[in-house]
């Protein structure tokens, strides 16, 4: 799975924001703001990856236990799917 095309993640004045580009930029519905972990997951999802891979990457980057990483990734992917931002 990966993030759908047509979005750009950028840090603006201390916030991680995602904006639509290309055709999606026309019907602009707002800006998505991500926390640091969210931005990390988003960046990882710019390349095709799996949930297990994401958990591994987070464990290497952040000082958290595997259970927390797993549930964070699940929850995060869930909200991205709900917003129709993930292509399988």
């Amino acid at each position, binding site marked *: 799975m990966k993030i759908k095309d047509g979005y*750009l993640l*950028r840090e*603006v004045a201390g916030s991680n924001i995602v904006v639509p*580009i*290309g055709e999606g*930029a*026309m019907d*602009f519905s*707002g800006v998505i*703001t991500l926390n640091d972990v969210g931005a990390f997951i988003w960046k990882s999802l710019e390349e095709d990856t799996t949930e297990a891979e994401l958990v591994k990457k987070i464990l290497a980057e952040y000082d958290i236990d595997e259970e927390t990483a797993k549930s964070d990734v699940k929850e995060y992917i869930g909200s991205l799917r709900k917003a129709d931002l993930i292509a399988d």
Partner: protein
Amino acid sequence: MHKLKVADLNLLIKYKYDTMLKQAAFYETDFEKPNITIDIPDETLEEWHKESPHLTIDDIEYVYTGAAFYEALLHFNGFMLHSSGVVKDGYAYLFSADPGTGKSTHTGLWQKHFGEDNARIINDDKPAIRLVDDRLWVYGTPWSGKTDKNLNIKVPLGAIVFLERSEENWVKEIEPREAIPLVMQQTIRPVEKDKMIMLLDMLDRVLSSVKLYRLGCNISDEAVEVSYNGIRVEE
């Protein structure tokens, strides 16, 4: 082709209808090499006119030359903020909001309160902001919306204020995080990735270095006092 200096950029541009002739007159200059060239073919203007028949071809030329300029501006550390800009004590204060909210009404009240010479409208609808020599400047441009209120001057950016209607007058400073979607709503959002990156990098600079406010205001002299005292740059 006309030669203009807009926002400290040499602009080689084609236009022939009344609005542009009138609006651009104060920006005419001479130069060897242009920084930006805008040459929209007549056929293209006529095509756009067919898509928006409620506008005159004159309006179409004015709107689309402006859109072309503001898109090109992104390449020169600049962007447009949909706002009415007023200059007071050497700083430009930009009041931004959706059309019809009362941006121009509010800056008009500033002029009435302080006198037209002490509160000058740099651009009533689409001022340009540029980072030049590590400082943020506001420029007047020929494109100032429905009014002809614009000045060919540059002034340091004082503050950006997001205006809304309110029965009571109030000012509240806001964080960049809150201002990001508001600014994005009030500028031209580029479609191409490289231009979007230019815009966001410019916003990164602007929003981290300038004071940002929300202003609720009615139409009164008190609105000016609350607004001015709440946002003015303290020396």
